[in-house]
């Protein structure tokens, strides 16, 4: 019994650490990767709470597809930024 509780406590701590990391990291990419790991950790929590349906949905939609969306948008903005920087060299120099 207590070993289950220990596991739950560790999981909760892991989830909180991952969430803090994802939200307050200065680097966007790190934030996104930590968010995906948070999704996976949360999936384990859902299994612990006997919510298998939700766990499957979380791992496919919550972590998987949301993560893909974030990474896709991040990549796009990166390329856009690179493009803009190379075009407006003068502007970046002034910055």
């Amino acid at each position, binding site marked *: 019994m207590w070993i289950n509780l220990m596991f739950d406590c560790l999981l909760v701590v892991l989830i909180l650490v991952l969430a803090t990391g994802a939200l307050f990291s200065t680097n966007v990419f790190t934030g996104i990767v930590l968010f995906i790991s948070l999704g996976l950790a949360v999936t384990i929590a859902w299994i612990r709470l006997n919510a298998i349906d939700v766990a499957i949905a979380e791992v496919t939609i919550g972590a998987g*597809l949301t993560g893909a*969306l974030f990474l896709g*948008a991040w*990549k796009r903005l990166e*390329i856009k930024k*690179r493009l803009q920087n190379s075009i407006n060299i003068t502007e970046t120099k002034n910055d």
Partner: protein
Amino acid sequence: MINAHDSTSLKNRYVFIIIMAISMLAGCVIYALLQTPAPQNIMYDLVQANIQQSGVTNPVTAILLNFRAYDTLLEFAVFFCVSIASLPYLDAGVSDSSDLETQDAPLFSLVKVLAPLTILLAGYMLWVGSFKPGGAFQAGALLAGCGLLLTLSNVGVTRMNGFWWRSIFSMSLIFFILVIGFSYLHSHTFLMYPTTLSGRLILFVEFAATFSIAATLYLCYLSVRGKVSQGAHRAS
């Protein structure tokens, strides 16, 4: 309020106040939560008592597609709304983003194995949903994941503005409304399925929903990622 670009000292004070206020609020909520006894568990008994008439044996599917099917109908409407909103931002013909995802031979052979597997798994998810954990959302997400894999390995995609794609986006709602109309003729009640057919009708709706959800999620990914112009590569 949202984009506060103040000087650093002012901003630090603002951040500090927010953190303090929210921590106090959260502390108050946690205190109230720990004081409150567990709620009465009426839903479990109710679901158990009525699940025989719902047509499925998985209680979550029974909730989603029978007892509270109204919520699910509106949720499909939310998805439909997002697909309408995302369509204009999708440049037709996304297959020529070759500068971004280079044709990767190992990835491609992996995808060749993975894609049919994912589709199989999605089909299984859909079918299993009526008696075990699983269902349309999970299956739809898997299918969308399959589409995503195909895009990543640079397999071409047709333009999604055409009539057929649009009917796939609205398919979940169309089938749902058909089922509502059909069962209304039968029971004269909004969203009450005839008991003998309800299992099949639910599967019917879920089948359509899987494709709509998959198509919408895939569309979201494509429009968020965008057709990155070749100019981007050259410029960098």
